[in-house]
């Protein structure tokens, strides 16, 4: 299965990158943009068909390494193998 781990800075934590991107979007004319938060996505292939095991592995990896709980929150999204890449359009 594929585990997507989305890591974002916690609400309220200053995000200098997001702020710079928002400024750039404003300069490009997107005046309606009121806020941008930049994050990270990790796409992790796990050798299992068991969604429960994949989710458990994903949350352990996020808590140990992928996210820093002092400043970041994470979210898991599970995908069946090949669901993203091989799906018919």
């Amino acid at each position, binding site marked *: 299965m594929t585990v997507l781990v989305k890591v974002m*800075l916690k609400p309220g934590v*200053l*995000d*200098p*990158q997001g702020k710079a991107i928002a400024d750039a979007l404003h300069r490009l004319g997107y005046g309606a943009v009121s806020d941008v938060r930049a994050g990270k996505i990790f796409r992790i292939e796990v050798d299992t068909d068991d969604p429960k095991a994949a989710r458990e592995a994903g949350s352990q990896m996020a808590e140990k*390494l992928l996210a*820093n709980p*002092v400043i970041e929150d994470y979210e898991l999204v599970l995908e069946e193998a090949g669901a993203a890449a091989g799906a018919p359009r």
Partner: protein
Amino acid sequence: MSAATPADGAGAGIPRVAVVVFPGSNCDEDAALASRNVLGADVKMVRHDERALGDPDLVILPGGFSYGDYLRSGAMARFSPVMESVAAFAGQGGAVLGICNGFQILCEAGLLPGAMLRNEGLRFVCRDVFLRVESKRTPFTLAINKGDVLRMPVAHGDGNWTAEKRVYEEMLARDQVVFRYVRADGSRGEGGNPNGSLDDVAGICNVRGNIVGLMPHPERASEELLGGTDGARLFKSFATTRMAMHGA
């Protein structure tokens, strides 16, 4: 060489310093040189994959870009085998100094509170800054006056230290802020803080006071040849503290 000889090192013997070398450390030799020249120390370089620190008086986690700074600065160095030994050494009250990337690693490892964000201005900042000594409760500041202003360089992109409000309030109550960024005259305000860190924090310690992390580089300001000697005062303070502890 203008190296200060540690004449006061007689009673307790020559200090032993372990400098940890991670893949991507680049201030390890500078830290070793400052330890030799200022402390007159016997320096052991300890690789990230080693566990034996060699019974040191002081462990230095040097600056650099450990593991390429991938993911987050210090995030991967934290899992190096050597860090288990560093944590055990610190747990017994051993003195640990984390400089720049070393500070980031100590935060990631949970040995110091808080975490690092990208610099407020998003730029890598490489210039001299002024630090005000805010606490004398660590071995590196015990022999320096509170309020003294030290000049030394910073060189980092992720030095914007932050902590949750509740955590920071506890730190203030326990006198854990060791250095703050100030202007040349020692006042806080515009131009002092190079990275946007919370409350102008430049360096902190753990509750016990034996683990200190700071973003500026004292080892790069430890000889006149390097443009300043204010950084040497941290090493000298450590030597003084060590002598006092050995009852000399």
